[in-house]
């Protein structure tokens, strides 16, 4: 591995986390290709509309027509706060085109001279609004990428939460030169166990907070047991992790199917949404949880004995054993952690969708492994960085989100995602100076 020539902090940082450059490039690309007109929302949209109406010479009687989104209701307030006395807001309608139609007719029939209709860019497209004989005023737009809208950035963080959290455990497992294919099935198991507990033990839709906690812990505990068993089989019998976890993948998926009787478990109270959909300071709770877990994992991997031991086991198991590392215990711990985090992921999915089914998390094990590998962790073991994995997860999330934003169909998305994974891993190799021309030549000559 080549070390950077200058010993600056930036140099080391880029050497360790070179993938951040790929992430930034992707973000720049997607920002440029998703540039679009944006309108302010909420109260500021109202203020903007009020200003435009205030600029009109004659006093007007006007209508406000918006869809019934959460933020649309604040537009009326914004208008009322900033509108001049000489203008009258006759009626504000929050609904669909039908309601708009009725309101326009009612206002006309009541003898109001509606000269202006204030609307959003969405309601401006409705036929009754479009065809009404009145000046339409929409909040003035500005140019900004769809990709970089705050809502979209939150969506990206939210879409990778589950993958990223599980990828923490997967990184540890892969650093010990192992692999865990069972995490996708564990998502299903955890969701189903949580769902079944809520439905059958805590009263379904009427379950209290305590019951929800116990159910969630139950779901996670089931996965901890599976993770522990995997670790035990790998450590005690020296079975290849690939085979053990492949078996677990099937076994756990089967158990989840049996437990749920192949039905969707939907008797889950609204309160359970908090974990997946609750917000603190504008960021979903699950996303805070993800960042917190990464902070803890970063500390564990770089500052604690256990972290050093995990790297040692993957680097050279025999040398680690001879220098006093309890290899089997380390293996047991990493697979258990991986199971635990997969269980947590399952609970989050269950909360996000407010339902549980045995087909959740299918193929997610591969996305998790991809995030880890793109993040620069070597499948050979001994090398890898927790924060690299976070970057890897973001790269995958950004690509998936970006491809949806530019309307790429989902089959082409597979091609792009596959190619990006190959390119990312190749770039990482080249950057670390691990690619030799002679190796490439030897493929064809020897």
């Amino acid at each position, binding site marked *: 591995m080549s070390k950077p020539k200058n010993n600056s902090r930036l140099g080391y940082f880029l050497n360790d986390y070179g993938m951040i450059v790929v992430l930034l490039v992707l973000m720049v*690309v997607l920002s440029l290709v998703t*540039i679009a007109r944006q309108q302010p929302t909420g109260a500021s949209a109202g203020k903007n509309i009020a200003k435009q109406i205030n600029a009109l010479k004659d006093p007007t009687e006007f209508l406000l027509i918006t869809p019934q989104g959460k933020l649309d209701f604040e537009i009326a307030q914004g208008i009322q706060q900033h509108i001049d006395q000489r203008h009258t807001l006759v009626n504000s309608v929050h609904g669909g085109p039908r309601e708009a139609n009725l309101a326009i007719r009612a206002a006309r029939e009541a003898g109001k001279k509606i000269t202006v209709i204030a609307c959003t860019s969405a309601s401006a497209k409705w036929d009754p609004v479009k065809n009404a004989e009145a000046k339409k005023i929409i909040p003035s737009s500005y140019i900004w990428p769809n990709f970089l809208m705050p809502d979209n950035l939150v*969506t990206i963080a939210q879409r990778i939460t589950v993958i990223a959290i599980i990828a923490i455990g997967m990184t540890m497992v892969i650093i010990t030169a192992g692999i865990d294919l069972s995490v996708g099935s564990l998502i299903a198991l955890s969701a189903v166990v949580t769902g079944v507990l809520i439905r059958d033990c805590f009263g379904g839709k009427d379950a209290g907070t305590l019951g929800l906690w116990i159910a969630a812990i139950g779901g996670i505990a089931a996965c901890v047991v599976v993770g522990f068993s995997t670790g035990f089989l790998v450590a005690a019998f020296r079975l290849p992790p690939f085979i053990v976890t492949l078996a677990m993948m099937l076994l756990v998926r089967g158990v989840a199917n049996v437990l749920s009787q192949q039905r969707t478990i*939907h008797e889950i109270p609204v309160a359970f949404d908090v974990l997946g959909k609750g917000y603190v300071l504008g960021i979903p709770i699950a996303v805070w949880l993800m960042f917190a877990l990464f902070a803890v994992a970063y500390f564990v991997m770089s500052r604690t004995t256990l972290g050093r031991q995990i790297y040692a086991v993957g680097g050279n198991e025999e040398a680690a054993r001879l220098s006093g590392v309890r290899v089997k215990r380390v293996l047991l711990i990493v697979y258990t952690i991986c199971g635990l985090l997969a269980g947590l992921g399952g609970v989050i999915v269950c909360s996000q969708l*407010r339902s549980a089914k045995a087909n959740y998390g299918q193929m997610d094990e591969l996305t998790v492994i991809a995030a880890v590998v793109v993040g620069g962790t070597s499948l050979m073991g001994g090398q890898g960085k927790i924060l690299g994995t976070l970057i890897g997860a973001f790269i995958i999330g950004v690509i998936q989100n970006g491809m949806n934003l530019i309307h790429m169909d989902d089959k082409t998305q597979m091609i792009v995602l596959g190619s990006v994974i190959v390119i990312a891993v190749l770039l990482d190799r080249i950057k670390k100076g691990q690619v030799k021309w002679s190796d490439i030549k030897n493929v064809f000559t020897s």
Partner: protein
Amino acid sequence: MQKKLLRFLVLALIPVVAVACQKSSTNSDGDNSAGDAKKKVGILLQTTENPFFNDLAKAAETELGSEYQVIIFGGDKSADKQAKQVEDLINQKVDALLITPCNANAVGAPIRAANQAGIPVFTADTACLDKDVRIEAHVATDNYAGGKLAGQAMIQALGGKGGNILVLDYEQAESCQERVRGFKEVIDAHNADSKNQNAQIKIVSELPSLAEESASRKQTKDALKSNRDLVGIFAINDPAALGAVAAIEEEKLQDQIKVIGFDGQESGKIAIRDGRIYADPIQFPKKMGKRSAQFIKKYFAGEDVPKVEMIAPKLYYKADADADPELKNKK
């Protein structure tokens, strides 16, 4: 090292900027006519693997016409993937969503998100069972009525005789549960009516088909080992029916066992023409797509839209297939 990186960055940015310039110039073209901008409709399909959904989407797109920009995504039957697609479409501020849910309950979460963003939601095929959401209209096949038709076709196929039959179900989908419910009701009524012991139709086994060909083939083969005397099979969709047909033909029992399918996909219709499947209650995905699109247009025109519309299925026999212009020259 950093120099190299810098060079790499600059190189990478050139095509990016080129693409972006092109894109943004087309964007500004579109915005010149911002007054009557196209309405964007996101169509979310359960899967693009099943032609049923592709037909539905295409018909909807055609019906919506040039005033609408249509974005189509397939959800690979994953509720989670579909939820994420809906969220990405909300971020693009689409004007309406037409969803064929991957999961009748789990689809509630993304629909709620669309509701909060003020985007109208229409559903087709599978209904959303989460009552906590606002849906403008739902268009679906009357699966229960279809199941009853399948039952009548089975009685007809057996020609007044009874015997043991097999049902290949798919309990994961509520629509398929409805089909089996309707089927069983007709068979039970038939058994109650006919005093003749020989005319009794008995469902000896009900196996999961996974709604696909290979699983159904295996299930049918296994069922034939224990029940060599089967006289009929009802499969909840065409891929499952074709799997059953494949197993029957491998065992050379095609003269003994009659198969009833469901859906009326092209492969199913061809099998009916060739006499391999007796009959299908057929669904009308194109009609479903067309009706959904009409409702979306009505909605934007400010007209009333019915909350639910059920499209009645129809039995489709060999005679229908022989006369079907769409099947000419198809193998």
